[in-house]
C-alpha cells in the first residue's frame, strides 16, 4: 500500500522482498558490522581463535577447524545478509592478493560502516560521506607510502627486515611461542626462491606426532610416496626421468577400434604384441639411461619388473603437483614420448641423493642436492591434525607476506604505528577541508584508529589510555613508537623489531574503503525469490 492507502499491484515474484532507503541501509550496516565484530576478537597478537564446525549430516560433521585466520573463518561461514557477503568477498580477495591481513580488512570495513552509520543518523547524505572517505583514503595511502622505507634487496638490513616481518606476522598466530624459530625457517625458504613468487616450490608436509618444535626446513624436496618394492632405497648421483605416460598395455587412441579374432592363437599373438609394445616402451626409456624413473600414472607389474631388472628405481603414481615440483627441482622435463634419447642431457633431472626416509611413522622419498636449488620442503610436526592445519595456514600467510615483501620491498613499523599515522594524516586533512566531507574524513581517522584500539582490547589492556598515550608519543615526534603488546605499554618499534609489509596494509586500506563505499551507496535491496529445489 502506498501512503494514501491505494493497494499497489504486486510487481515482484512471491517471496521476493524489497527494502528501500533507511531500512535497506540499516540492514546492510547491521550485517556488515556483525561480521566485523565476529572476527574482531581474533585481531592482534592476543587475539582469540574460533572453532568452526561444519553443518549437515555425515562424517564431515566431526571434522572441526580451529583457526585465527580471518579469511578461513569468513570463508566457512554461511551468511544470508548481502552486505556481510561483500565483506567476506573482500577478505577472500585480500587472501588471494597478499595472503595476510584478511581480518584487518574486514574489521576496517566494518568500523568504517559503523562510523558511517553515525554520520547518516546526523542526516548527512551518503554521497557526502563517500566523498569524504575518498579524500581520506588518498591522504592515508599517501602517508603510508611516505612513512615506509626500503632497503636494498641484497643487503643484510633487508634480510633482517624479512625476519622481523615474519616474526610480526607470526606473533598473532598459534605458534607465537616459537616465532623466532619459524620466522627464520620461513625467511630461509623464501630466500631460496630468489625473488620469484612461485610458492609452488615450497612444499609443506604435515605429519602428526612430535611437537611443533620438531618442525624443520629441509633443503631438499620430499615426495610423499614410496619407492616400489624391489628397488634400491638409496641412490647417489641420480639421473631422474620424469614421465607422464601410461605404463600399462597402452590403449589404442584411434577411435572405434575393436579386437575381433577368430581363434585362440590370435588372442595369444595379440597378447604377445601388447607385451612387446610395453617392452618397447621400456627399452626406449632405458636408452635414456636413467637411474630413477618417476611416473605420474600407474606402472603395471610387467614394466615395473623390467625396469627393476635394469637396476632402475621406480616411483609410480606421483600426484600432479608433486610431479611438477620434482621436475622443477631436479631440472627434468616431463616426458610423454620417448623417441629422442639424444636429448638425454636436456630432459633428465639430476640430484645428488635420493633416499627413503622415515618421518614419524611414514616413509617418504627425499631428493637432496637438486640441480635447481630453489625447491625446499617444510615439514610440520605437531600433536594433532588441527594444530598442524592451523600452523600450515600461518606458515602460508607468512610465506605470502614475505614474497610480497620481496617483490615490493617497502616496509612500515608495526604495532599499530602505520594505522595511527594514517589516522593522524586524515585528521590534519580534515582541518583543511570545507564542507560536510570533513566530518567523514574525521570518521575515517576514527575507524583507522579502531584497529590498534581493538588490538589493545583483545590483549586486555586499557585501550583508551594506551591509544591516547600512543597519540601523544607520535605528536612528540617519536615516529617509531607503537604498541608493546607484551607489557601493555607504548614502546619503540625499532627496538622491538616489529615491522610489517607496506603492501599488505596498502591493499587492506584500499579494499576496505572500496567495500565500505560499495555498501554505503546502496539505498535499495531487492531479494529475489529463492530458487526452488526439487527434493526428489
Amino acid at each position, binding site marked *: 500500500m502506498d501512503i494514501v492507502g491505494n493497494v499497489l*499491484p504486486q510487481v515482484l515474484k512471491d517471496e521476493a522482498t524489497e527494502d528501500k532507503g533507511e531500512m535497506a541501509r540499516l540492514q546492510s550496516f547491521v550485517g556488515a558490522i556483525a561480521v566485523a565484530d565476529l572476527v574482531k576478537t581474533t585481531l592482534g597478537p592476543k587475539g582469540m581463535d574460533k572453532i568452526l564446525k561444519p553443518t549437515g549430516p555425515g562424517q564431515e560433521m566431526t571434522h572441526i577447524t580451529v583457526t585465527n585466520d580471518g579469511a578461513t573463518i569468513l570463508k566457512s561461514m554461511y551468511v544470508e545478509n548481502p552486505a556481510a557477503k561483500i565483506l567476506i568477498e573482500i577478505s577472500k580477495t585480500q587472501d588471494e592478493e597478499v595472503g595476510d591481513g584478511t581480518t584487518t580488512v574486514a574489521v576496517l570495513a566494518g568500523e568504517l560502516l559503523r562510523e558511517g552509520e553515525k554520520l547518516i543518523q546526523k542526516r548527512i547524505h551518503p554521497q557526502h560521506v563517500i566523498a569524504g572517505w575518498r579524500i581520506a583514503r588518498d591522504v592515508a595511502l599517501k602517508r603510508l607510502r611516505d612513512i615506509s622505507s626500503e632497503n636494498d634487496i641484497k643487503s643484510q638490513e633487508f634480510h633482517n627486515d624479512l625476519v622481523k616481518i615474519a616474526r610480526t606476522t607470526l606473533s598473532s598466530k598459534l605458534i607465537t611461542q616459537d616465532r623466532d624459530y619459524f620466522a627464520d625457517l620461513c625467511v630461509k625458504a623464501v630466500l631460496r626462491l630468489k625473488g620469484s613468487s612461485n610458492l609452488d616450490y615450497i612444499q609443506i608436509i604435515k605429519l602428526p606426532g612430535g611437537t611443533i618444535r620438531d618442525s624443520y626446513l629441509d633443503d631438499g624436496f620430499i615426495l610423499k610416496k614410496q619407492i616400489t618394492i624391489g628397488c634400491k632405497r638409496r641412490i647417489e648421483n641420480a639421473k631422474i626421468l620424469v614421465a607422464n605416460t601410461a605404463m600399462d598395455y597402452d590403449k589404442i587412441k584411434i577411435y572405434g577400434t575393436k579386437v575381433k579374432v577368430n581363434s585362440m592363437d590370435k588372442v595369444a599373438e595379440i597378447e604377445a604384441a601388447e607385451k612387446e609394445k610395453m617392452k618397447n616402451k621400456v627399452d626406449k626409456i632405458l636408452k635414456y639411461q636413467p637411474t630413477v624413473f618417476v611416473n605420474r600414472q600407474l606402472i603395471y607389474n610387467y614394466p615395473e619388473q623390467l625396469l627393476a631388472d635394469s637396476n632402475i628405481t621406480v616411483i609410480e603414481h606421483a600426484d600432479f603437483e608433486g610431479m611438477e615440483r620434482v621436475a622443477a627441482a631436479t631440472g627434468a622435463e616431463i616426458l*610423454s614420448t620417448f623417441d629422442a634419447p639424444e636429448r638425454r642431457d636436456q630432459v633428465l633431472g639430476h640430484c645428488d641423493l635420493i633416499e627413503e626416509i622415515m618421518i614419524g611413522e611414514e616413509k617418504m622419498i627425499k631428493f637432496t642436492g637438486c640441480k635447481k636449488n630453489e625447491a625446499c620442503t617444510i615439514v610440520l610436526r605437531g600433536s594433532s591434525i588441527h594444530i598442524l592445519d592451523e600452523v600450515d595456514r600461518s606458515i602460508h600467510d607468512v610465506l605470502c607476506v614475505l614474497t610480497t615483501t620481496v617483490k615490493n620491498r617497502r616496509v612500515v613499523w608495526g604495532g599499530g604505528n602505520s594505522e595511527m599515522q594514517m589516522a593522524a594524516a586524515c585528521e590534519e586533512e580534515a582541518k583543511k577541508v570545507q564542507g560536510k566531507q570533513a566530518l567523514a574524513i574525521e570518521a575515517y581517522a576514527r575507524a583507522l584508529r579502531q584497529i590498534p584500539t581493538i588490538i589493545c582490547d583483545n590483549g586486555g589492556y586499557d585501550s583508551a589510555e594506551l591509544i591516547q598515550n600512543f597519540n601523544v608519543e607520535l605528536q612528540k615526534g617519536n615516529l617509531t613508537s607503537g604498541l608493546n603488546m607484551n607489557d601493555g605499554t607504548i614502546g619503540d618499534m625499532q627496538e622491538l623489531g616489529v615491522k610489517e609489509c607496506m603492501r599488505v596494509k596498502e591493499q587492506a586500506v584500499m579494499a576496505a574503503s572500496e567495500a565500505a563505499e560499495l555498501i554505503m551507496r546502496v539505498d535499495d535491496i531487492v531479494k529475489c525469490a529463492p530458487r526452488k529445489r526439487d527434493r526428489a
Partner: protein
Amino acid sequence: MSLAFDDYGRPYIILRDQGQKKRMKGLEAYKSNILAAKAVANTLSSSLGPKGMDKMLVSPDGDVSVTNDGATIVEKMEIQHPTAKLLVELSQSQDAEIGDGTTGVVVLAGKLLEQALTLLDKGIHPLKISDGFDRACDVAIKHLETISEEIDIQANDNEALVQAACTALGSKVVSKRKRELGKIAVTAVLDVADLARRDVNLDLIKIQTKTGGSVEDTRLISGILIDKDMSHPQMPKEVKDAKICLLTCPFEPPKPKTKHNINISSADDYKKLYLQEQQYFVDMVKLVKNSGANIALCQWGFDDEANHLLLQNELPAVRWVSGTDVELIAMATGARIIPRFQEITPEKLGKAGCVKEVQFGTSNERMLVIENCQCTKAVTILIRGGSQMIVDEAKRSIHDAICVIRNLIKDNRIVYGGGSAELACAIQVLQYADEVSSVEQYAIRSFADALEGIPCCLADNCGLNPITSVAQAKALQLKENNPRIGIDCMELGTIDMKEQRIYETLSSKKQQIQLATQVVKMILKIDDVIAPDDY
C-alpha cells in the same frame, strides 16, 4: 471474474477455466498497470544522476550484486507483473541500442505515467492522452535537434570524448577514477574505431576482469588477454616475434563423424595401428612446425603424448582457448583459423610482437597476453578491484562509457546534461501546448511536466531542493534563452552545463524520449487484463 447467468442460473462459459481467471478492465486496469510500472520507475529514480545511489540485488541463488546500471537492476529484480515487464524491456532496448541512459529512460516513462494518471482522473480518454504525448514527443525531438551542437571529437587530444565518457562514468561506483577510466575507454575505442566509416566494432574490445588490487590498477592492454596458460608447465613463458598458428582441431587422432569399426584380427594389425597412431602425432606436430609457427593456440584439448611432442619440438602451445577468443586473436593477429592440420600454410599464421604469461597476486593464476599484434585492432581492458562485485560493476560502467564514445563517433552531435536538455524541451513543449485547441492540450502540457520531472529527480538525488533549483534553472533558461542551464549536481558553483562540460549524446537523449513515449502509449492502450488468478 464477473459471470453472466442464463435463466436457470447456469453461468455462460466464455473463457476456458473462467472461474480461475482474474480480469480487470476499464479504469481499474489502467490504474493498476500504471501503478505497477510506476513502482519499477520509483525504484530506479534514486539511481539517476551523478549522486544516484546503488541497488543491492540478491539473486535466487543468493549471489549478491551491487549496481547502478538501470538495465542490470531491472533485469535482476525478476519482475513478474506483466506491465512492469514492459519497462524492463524498455530499459533493455535502450541498452541494446545505445548502451547508456538505461535508468533515465525508465524514470522518464514513470514520470509520464504519473502525469497520465492525473489526466485519467480528469476524465480524459486514454487515447487522447497518448495522442497528446505523441505530438509533444515530436516537438521535443525537433527541439533537441535544434539545440544540439556538433563537436569536433578529435580536437584537443579527444577531450570531448573523454568528457562524455566521464559523464557516463560519473554516476557509478568508479566515479572517483572517472577521468583515468574515461581515458582508457576513449583510447580503447579509438584504437579499434574505423573513423572513415564512423563505425566501431565493439567485439574488438575485450573486457577482462580480475579481482585484486584496486580500481586504479585497471589498465589498457594493446593486445589480447586470455585467461589460459601454456599447456605444459615447462614450455617457455614468453615468445617474442610470435607466429601464431590458430587451430580449431584437437591434437588427437581424428574422430570421423561416420560410425565405423576397426577390427583388429592379428598381432600385425595391432602393431600397425600402434605405429599409425604414433605417426598421427608426429605428423601433426611436424605440420605445425614446418609452417614456421612458434606458438600454437588450439580451441580443443591435447593428448598427453602430443603435448610432450610439442614441448620436445619447442613449440609452446595453449589448449582450450574459447571460441570468442580464437576469433578475436584471428582478427588481431591476422591469423586464419585453421580447421585441419593439412591446411596449415605459412600465410595463414598470425603475427604478434610478444606472447607472454603474466601472474597476479599470490594465487597461482596466470594469464596469457598477446601484445603488438600485426593488425593492432584488438585491445583488452583489464579491470581490477577489491572484490568481485566492484569488478563487475566497473565492467558494466566501462561498457556504458565505451557505448557513449562509440555513439559520439557515429554521430558527433551532443546536448548538454544535468537536466538542461529536458528542461529546454519542456519549455518548448509548453509553448506548443498553448497553440493546440483540442483536448490534447492537457496531455501535451503534462508531457512538459513529465520532462521537468527528470531535472527534479536529479536535484532530489543530489540533496538539493528540487522545486527551487528547477524553477531557478527554468527561469534563467527563459530569460537568457540559453538551453544549457541545468542542475548543478556536483556543486561546482555554475549551472551552465557547457561550463561544467557535461556532455550527452543527442542520439541517446532522442532515443530515451522516443522509447519512453512509445511504452507509455502502449500501456495506455491496455484496457483489459486477463490473467490466471494465482497472481
